[in-house]
């Protein structure tokens, strides 16, 4: 028992005396929780600047411009006569959208002749584009429906038939989760899981690599069959605290919707952190230099984000990449946390993700055993002279 206690004490000492690990745990985990949501603090993009090219100069065209101005999505920064001039505004970045009202717009609409409203958005920026088009389309469509209804009335068509003739079916859309379509609510729940994952890989991976180096120098050390389980336990315990901080305190601060039962969330976090922790220890053994885990994490972050299925639907990924992504604990982790906490799924509905994470625990556990037996110690890149 006392051997176990001594071993545990030793593992803790290695942990808190490692300045690089402490920098990740204390600085990184807190700083990232502030940094990653920072660009999205306004949650929804504001009014985007658009220009209106009005070739009609009728009352109806002026009314349309007013409607466009009144939408929350766009604001009219210029009324121009010429489309080329409008494109210059867009090229210079002064406007991101364009509405062209054709000549004789009012006359054609009232006479029931086909007419074309053109909307253009700057598709170099996805969010800007979809917002511009949404605003312009809403204004244009409602105004033309109203005008057509008025015309139908003047023509003496039966009042009860008009809605069905103008709009045979109506589509009412609603966000099932994240009803505001906010960027914070979209990015933060997924990226926070990824931050926990990546910092745990760095911290536990680097500590393991350094431990191997120390052992290689012939320092007395706790036997591996004690050291590795204790290290895993330490990191899972620390990261459960971080998980509570992230999913409890910070989600509340960022007002991210939360539906999960805390106990279920804690259980999921334990499984996820165990899988990630085992992956981190195996990573610490797989690399051939001390900085290896940090390098691997840095290089893998962007690919993981876009393969994890919350940005780009995983159904749309090539099959080989889907398999590759399933090797990373973050992939089922992000999905399981989103479904449980943001989308309100019951724990038993997460069977695929939970099974995958269990398989990852087994796989990385076995890999760790294998590597711990056979790998030689890693080399440091460079030890600065002042620090022996």
């Amino acid at each position, binding site marked *: 028992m006392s051997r176990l206690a001594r071993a545990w004490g030793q593992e803790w000492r290695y942990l808190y005396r490692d300045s690089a690990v402490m920098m990740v745990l204390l600085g990184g985990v807190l700083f990232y929780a502030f940094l990653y949501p920072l660009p999205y603090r306004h949650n929804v993009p504001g009014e985007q600047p658009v220009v209106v090219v009005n070739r009609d100069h009728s009352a109806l065209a002026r009314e349309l411009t007013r409607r466009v101005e009144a939408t929350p999505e766009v604001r009219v920064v210029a009324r121009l006569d010429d489309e080329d001039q409008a494109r210059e505004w867009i090229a210079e970045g002064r406007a991101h959208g364009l509405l062209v009202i054709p000549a004789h717009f009012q006359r054609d609409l009232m006479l029931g002749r086909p007419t074309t409203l053109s909307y253009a958005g700057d598709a*170099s920026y996805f969010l800007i584009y979809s917002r511009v088009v949404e605003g312009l389309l809403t204004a244009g*469509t409602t105004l033309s429906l109203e005008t057509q209804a008025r015309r139908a009335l003047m023509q003496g068509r039966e009042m009860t038939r008009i*809605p069905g003739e*103008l709009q045979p079916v109506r589509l009412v859309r609603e*966000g099932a989760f994240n009803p505001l379509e906010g960027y914070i609510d979209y990015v933060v729940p997924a990226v926070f899981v990824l931050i926990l994952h990546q910092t745990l890989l760095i911290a536990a991976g680097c500590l393991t690599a350094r431990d191997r180096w120390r052992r290689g120098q012939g320092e007395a050390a706790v036997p591996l069959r004690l050291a590795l389980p204790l290290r895993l336990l330490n990191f899972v315990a620390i990261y459960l605290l971080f998980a509570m901080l992230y999913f409890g305190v910070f989600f509340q601060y960022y007002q991210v919707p939360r539906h999960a039962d805390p106990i279920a969330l804690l259980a999921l976090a334990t499984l996820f952190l165990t899988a990630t922790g085992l992956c981190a220890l195996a990573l610490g053994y797989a690399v051939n230099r001390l900085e290896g885990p940090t390098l691997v994490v840095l290089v893998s972050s962007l690919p993981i984000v876009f393969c994890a299925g919350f940005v780009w639907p995983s159904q749309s990924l090539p099959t080989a990449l889907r398999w590759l992504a399933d090797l990373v604990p973050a992939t089922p982790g992000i999905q399981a946390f989103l479904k449980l906490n943001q989308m309100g799924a019951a724990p038993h509905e997460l069977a695929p993700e939970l099974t995958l994470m269990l398989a990852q625990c087994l796989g990385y556990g076995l890999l760790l055993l294998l590597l711990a037996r056979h790998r030689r110690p890693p080399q440091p890149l460079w030890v600065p002279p002042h620090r022996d």
Partner: protein
Amino acid sequence: MALPDGGQALREDSWLRLLSLWLPPLATLLFLAIFAQGAPRDLPLAVVNLDPGGASRALIRALDASPGLAVHREYRSLAGARVALRRGEVLATLVIPEDFAAHLRQGRSPRLAAFENTQYLLAGKFIGSALVDAVGDYGARAGAALRLAHGDPAPRVALAVKAVRPQVVSLFNPAMSYARFLVTAIAPAMWQVLLVVATVLAVFWRLRRAPLPAGNGARLKAMTSTLAPLGLVFWLQGLLMLALFAVFLEWQPAGGWGWLLLGLALTVLAVQAMAVLIVALMPEPLHALSACAAYLAPAFAFMGITFPRADMNTLAWWWGALMPSTHYMELQVAVADHAAPFATLWPPLVALLLFLAPLPLSVRALPGGGAS
């Protein structure tokens, strides 16, 4: 030191070779593969059909035929569809109301309710606009049928159905390919991460090999000798990245290639200057790499391609301005998409030059080096 020693660093350090020679093109190809579909196709949709019959069957067929949609399953009640939605099996649920067929026939404009999974914001928007298109087409046909049934003459029906044609143009990305929109921004962000890490590794390689000379000029020369070959490699990698865009994404700069070549070169210098600064401030490899992670890993989020920079708060705007990638992307969009005039191009180029300002100081502050 006649020959630059950066070449030797590449020969000796296998990680450096991996980071600078192999990973940049592989990463670009990886992102091209991820978004190979361009726009997601066949997104799974659940239909709750409360009015089984000919009209709803025709609607479901129309939905399934839309390239963006695939009807995953048909439900008779809302409960089952709700489970499928929150398990992520489907990305949206469409409810066909009771009396759908009757109301359609009577011209009472029945209401279809769609619940989209906007937790996955992009996918939710995709399936939403696919639904708008599919339902719109179905509605136009149903409306025409209705008017004909009311005895309107066919030519008038044809006019009425498309009284106002909305024409939506996606400027600078005519096919509205998300591959083009995302990959052309993610790949530069990734290239920048590889560049900063490779530069930091190269600086440490130099420090480990031999002590730096004492004089400022000599130091700057020593650093140039180490970093110039690497910078050249990454500049060529940047060109290769743009060439891959051109081959796989039909990306053709509307403006001059020259500006992009200059922009890439200045970005390489700016990132390398920042890497030297990081090592000068944190002469411990693990600390320096962690600093790189904190500084440039989130670059994609700050460059404004997704969430616009103009809508960020001041702090986020400034943090983004401290990353070379932000200015490079501003230039890339201005040159490649907008074919913008010189007045729009010079500010990002000058901003990239400003990153070189701390270089003399940070070269002086580098640790002496030498084997420990």
